[in-house]
């Protein structure tokens, strides 16, 4: 044996901190269209390069490139753009609403809108998404009315979730949107179980689970992937790698060592790594994985590489732990701008229509918020207190009945 050296503990640190220049020089970004697209029924063993690649469709000029480019009608693309812009307008407004003290909490998905929106549009009405809190774009793409969301955020008397949940922890079964919770990760395995149930029943519905890159460190992640692999569950398991988990950079979740898509290799399922700010690439990857799932070939893990352009939540100030210019320096750009550029390049869109659409959506959001405010903001209005004791069980037991009585409700 060699003479022993002294060991030292390695603690990962990001390339830059507040005061430093943002540094993305370590990134290896292939050209759009460069990555091959194997048929979706290819054996996993034939695709072990893909987790280390980065599937991109839109090039710097907004032109679609390569095998992954989906053929989408301009209407569909405009629908996607609309949903992304609506998401952004909603986020902007409701963030300010929280700052005005009208609710307790809010989280934006700025910079990541393409993922939720394209996934929502690429999957079927009966498929089920097991989302994270950054997936309101899914609902926007499916035209979920805004007012119930606003009421949920205000926890007011019209809140469909009866004031029981923190703002934005929606549930919308009819829109294929599973109940959120504040715990990260713990619903990833539900997606797998739901998909297994569909297979068990001989149905054709598939599920999509979503998890943040930081949350892949939870045991839940591994357990979900293990079950998905063993039973070949018809599920798409997505990692939204926005490179930050509150104040922790992705190196704390393992990104110094490999890609998140490479985690697929542990389970012998395909792993795709996709430019998450490229609407077309997201769509294509989801469709590929969905088709594979519907062919009964099981699960796919997809890493969507993106960047969390704003703070973690209204409780966070990212300038405390990363250069404030970092978002601007992020080389994969803004998903809205990139889809807009693509549509314009195809002569299917122009600046004027874009501005008009933003104005229209801003107004739509404003109106919904006003309407919600009329029902009442947090603290002004709430559902009947008896709702506190409902739905704990199917039927309340004596404890809940007595306690409700003690409350005088």
């Amino acid at each position: 044996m060699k003479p022993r050296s002294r060991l030292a503990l390695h603690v990962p640190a990001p390339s830059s901190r507040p005061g430093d220049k943002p540094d993305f020089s370590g990134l290896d970004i292939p050209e759009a269209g460069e990555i091959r697209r194997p048929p979706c029924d290819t054996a996993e063993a034939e695709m072990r390069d893909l987790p280390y690649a980065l599937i991109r469709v839109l090039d710097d000029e907004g032109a679609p490139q390569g095998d992954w480019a989906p053929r989408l009608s301009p209407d569909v693309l405009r629908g996607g753009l609309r949903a992304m812009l609506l998401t952004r307008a909603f986020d902007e407004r409701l963030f300010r609403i929280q700052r005005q003290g009208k609710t307790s909490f809010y989280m934006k998905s700025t910079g990541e809108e393409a993922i939720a929106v394209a996934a929502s549009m690429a999957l079927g009405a009966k498929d089920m998404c097991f989302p994270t809190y950054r997936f309101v774009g899914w609902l926007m793409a499916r035209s979920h009315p805004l007012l119930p969301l606003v009421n949920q955020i205000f926890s007011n008397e019209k809140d469909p979730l009866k004031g029981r949940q923190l703002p934005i922890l929606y549930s919308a079964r009819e829109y294929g949107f599973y109940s959120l919770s504040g715990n990260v990760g713990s619903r990833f395995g539900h997606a797998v179980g739901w998909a297994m149930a569909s297979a068990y029943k001989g149905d054709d519905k598939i599920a999509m689970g979503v998890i943040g890159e930081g949350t892949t460190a939870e045991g839940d992640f591994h357990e979900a992937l293990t079950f998905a692999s063993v039973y070949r569950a018809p599920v798409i398991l997505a990692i939204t790698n926005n490179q930050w988990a509150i104040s922790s950079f992705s190196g704390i979740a393992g990104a110094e060592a490999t890609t998140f898509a490479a985690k697929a290799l542990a389970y012998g399922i395909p792993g795709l790594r996709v430019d998450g700010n490229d609407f077309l690439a997201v769509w294509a990857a989801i469709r590929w994985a969905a088709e594979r799932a519907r062919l009964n070939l099981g699960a796919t893990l997809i890493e969507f590489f993106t960047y969390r352009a704003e703070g973690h939540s209204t409780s966070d100030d990212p300038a405390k732990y990363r250069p404030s210019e970092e978002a601007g320096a992020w080389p994969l750009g803004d998903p809205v701008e990139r889809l807009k550029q693509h549509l314009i390049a195809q002569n299917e869109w122009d600046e004027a229509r874009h501005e008009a659409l933003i104005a229209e959506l801003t107004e739509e959001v404003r109106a919904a918020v006003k309407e919600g405010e009329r029902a009442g903001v947090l603290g002004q209005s709430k559902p009947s207190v008896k709702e506190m004791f409902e739905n704990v069980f199917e039927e309340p037991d004596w404890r809940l009945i007595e306690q409700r009585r003690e409350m005088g409700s």
Partner: protein
Amino acid sequence: MPELSMIKALNDALDVMLARDPDVLIFGEDVGYFGGVFRVTDKLQEKHGATRCFDSPISEGGIVATAIGMSAYGLRPVVEIQFADYILPAYDQIVSEASRLRYRSNGEFIAPLTVRSPYGGGIYGGQTHSQSPEAIFAHVTGVKTVIPSTPYDAKGLLIAAIECNDPVIFLEPKRLYNGPFDGHHDRPTTSWAGHPAADVPEGHYAVPLGKASVAREGSEVTVLAYGTMVHVSAAAIEESGIDAELIDLRSIVPLDIDAITASVRKTGRCVVVHEASRYAGFGGELAALVQERCFYHLESPVERVAGWDTPYPHAFEWDYFPGPARVSAALKRCLETPA
């Protein structure tokens, strides 16, 4: 009626439900081809097919997470955790997810799953094959916790649990699997044969969740117990010659508070018995409730007989186990106090 052990009664309940309801399915470690390490799922795979009863990875968290997803889809999964000691990796899924899904989604999604698990000591299983974790589930709102003490109840309660639209933790007293163990480990073991509660009807029947049963009527003191401790308490009552009323709670959530208060108001004394460690165990809740609701009827403090506040130690199985002698002593302490 056929005479069944508790294992066979549980197996029968599962068989009945698999046959009745295509949405019922079973999975867990070793439950498929092999039929479970305690044989509770014996032959169910052979009879109902591999997708109705199958092996799972060794991942209790994954088992429960998957079952919740299935139940959100509309199935009624019945999962086995091989030993209740190993339910802890699934604790977060049970508490943070199963128990709250209905509440937080305002009923859009529900989790009608059943988590079966053998619990309790008395089989020389050492620290990690002996524990009784009921208290940590009782504290969690939104989940029911059921513990049978006879083959008849085991079948009827398990069917009720599977049919229940709330998540149910179903703890099976493994020391009772093959016979009505009364805590006398030094006597020959007895089987369920000949026991009245081993007369298990064929087919479907349910024992409602939340209804206690009076295992023995009596006037001097009320004993509250569940699972193995029902039999141990019965032995202690018999041996001490005290005319105690023995209540088998059958489920601790929902709890049959009326049966408890009615009995203690009648007897004026109460002993609570469980095998789990005493401190912050479910006996604390029972004692608290009894003194809250029967204070002016109580002639003596509510006594608790429980496992010691140590891990469950292999060599000291019978020193740890709260056997009939300890229960008898508590009964006597109760009665000795000035009326």
